């Protein structure tokens, strides 16, 4: 095996291991069980959003509005609880529907109006951000300190010692894994992502699948919004935007790890944990938060470049 082929197959994994070793060396706390659990817990929301993104990218598209779906999920749920006093599970349902609404908008723009996924979801992002600002009269949060404990528990509770949010994220992982990697729907979605025309000729109803996929992805992101709002007991407009790039990066990093370079659930999980590890490690190094922001950004670009370069060498 030449150096090039080793790099092509394992480049990113080697980098991940290097970072892991580096952080372990630099901080005594990094390697502790509690810290590793912290990483996983902190990654729960990003993971949920990244899974939605995995579905879309596997199908050959991109979704820049996942932050908006996240926000709508939070907003709909919090308002339902606060202004309509519904039960916590109803609020969750309403939140997910809020996300699905965003997905519906995307689906209509992309499948019916035939706008490219980039432009369509960018437009949704802009429109959605403004709607949020208008709705909150300037971007202030809607807080609900006295939310039902069951809802709050989505973020702070635990089941048999495992944090609820981790269980939710794991559940979403399992569902997505089954759908995308083991079901016949997933097979068709991968076919569409690989060669849309061939999938079309083979009789796969491409437009219907794309329509449903965008709705599904946004609905999934809304689940992340439920957890986020439960955590801080409020809906903060535009909070979802910060997850966008991490989600995209995780999907591409995950694709690079896959033997065929396809976006996949396991790879996305690894990608999310990698990013979580970076954030956690930089934190433990006690860096100034501006420096942290800069380093995370640079490492992200580097990891993406590596992921893409790896694909080119295959």
């Amino acid at each position, binding site marked *: 095996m030449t150096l090039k082929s080793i790099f092509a197959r394992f480049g990113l994994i080697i980098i991940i291991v290097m970072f892991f070793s580096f952080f372990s060396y630099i901080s005594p706390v990094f390697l502790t069980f509690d810290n590793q659990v912290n990483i996983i817990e902190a990654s729960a929301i990003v993971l949920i959003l990244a899974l939605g993104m995995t579905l879309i990218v596997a199908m050959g598209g*991109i979704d820049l509005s996942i932050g908006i779906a996240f926000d709508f999920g939070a907003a709909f749920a919090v308002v339902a609880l606060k202004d309509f006093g519904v039960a916590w599970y109803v609020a969750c349902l309403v939140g997910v529907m809020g996300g699905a609404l965003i997905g519906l908008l995307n689906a209509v*723009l992309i499948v019916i*109006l*035939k*706008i*490219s*996924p*980039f*432009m*369509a979801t*960018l*437009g*949704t*992002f*802009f*429109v*959605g*951000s*403004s*709607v949020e*600002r*208008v709705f909150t*009269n*300037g*971007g202030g949060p809607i807080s609900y300190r006295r939310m039902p404990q069951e809802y709050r528990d989505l973020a702070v509770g635990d089941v048999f010692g495992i944090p609820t949010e981790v269980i939710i994220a794991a559940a979403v992982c399992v569902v997505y894994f089954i759908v995308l990697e083991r079901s016949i729907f997933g097979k068709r979605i991968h076919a569409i992502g690989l060669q849309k025309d061939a999938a079309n000729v083979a009789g796969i109803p491409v437009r219907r699948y794309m329509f449903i996929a965008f709705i599904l992805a946004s609905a999934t992101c809304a689940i992340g919004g439920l957890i986020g709002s439960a955590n801080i007991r409020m809906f903060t407009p535009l909070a979802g935007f910060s997850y966008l*790039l991490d989600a*995209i*990066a995780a999907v*591409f990093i995950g694709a690079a790890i896959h033997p065929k370079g396809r976006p996949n659930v396991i790879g996305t999980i690894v990608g999310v944990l990698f990013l979580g590890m970076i954030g956690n490690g930089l934190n433990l190094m006690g860096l*100034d938060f*501006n*420096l942290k*922001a*800069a*380093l*995370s*950004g*640079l490492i*992200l*670009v580097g990891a*993406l*470049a590596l992921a*893409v*370069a790896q694909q*080119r060498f295959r």
Partner: protein
Amino acid sequence: MTQSMSTKLLAVFPIIVFACLFVYLGVQSATFFSLGTFELIAKQAVPTVIVALGLATVVIAGGDDVVAGGIDLSIPATAIICAAIIADQLTNQGNSLVFAMTLAFGAAAIIGAINAFLVVGLRMTPLLATLAMSVAIVGVTKVITSSRRIGVTDETIIFIRDGDIFGIAASVVMTAVLVVIFYHALHRTKWGMNMQATGGSRDAAEISGILTRRFVVQSFLIAAFAGWIASVFVLARGSGSSPGTEENMLLEMVLATFLGAAFSPRRVVTLWGAVLGAVVVSALSVGFISIGVNVFWTGCIKGGLILLVVASAAVASKGRS
């Protein structure tokens, strides 16, 4: 209605919408159609015009197809980081404007080079590459500014903000000169025609012996350069470097550039189109504020306008060959 008639109607649909918007604004606000307002619109449009020039160049060289073609979302971020570097050098380090701008130019050059490498060298989707770069750049900016505002009192910057050249606002005159230079380079030279050919049809260009990769690389360098120039005007407008202005600039830049395509006679992204688009967007902002529309609605309307323009173009192009 024949197919070509309905196609043409769809193509001008955005223009009709805009015309109506302006009539509405003119009617609602007594002062809208006044010289003072026009000057305000022009001054407000300056940073958007400049970054839109950069984006237009990348799109012209890369092709209108947003997925496979050219796009550079990192230009506003470049403008912000250059503004931060200049402000930091002027105010905190006490260096001259020339030195500060040179340093900032270096940063912009590095950014442009990295973008070019990612897109042309690694063949990363421009969308992903420039989006990721944008985040990285903003992060590095935070280090320079510690997420705090840096005020600037350099007299040249103040002149750009307040001064006049031959009776017209200094920033507007300088921007106009820049537009003329860009226009000449891109539409009146062999180099410019070849860049247009590269974006128009890669195959056609390569068959004609044009080195397309080189042009795409140059387009990203030019885009970063535009970001650098814009930074000076951003500083002037804000009398310093402030955190958090990037997202709005991004929205306006994209809207202006793609809106311009709807206004151009050939229905493609052009420099004049981008300039006109920036002015129209600025006019809308000024207009809405002057009639008291909630400033957050303007963002919504702008987003809606992007979708309107792109949808019309997408539907109209189905009727074309």
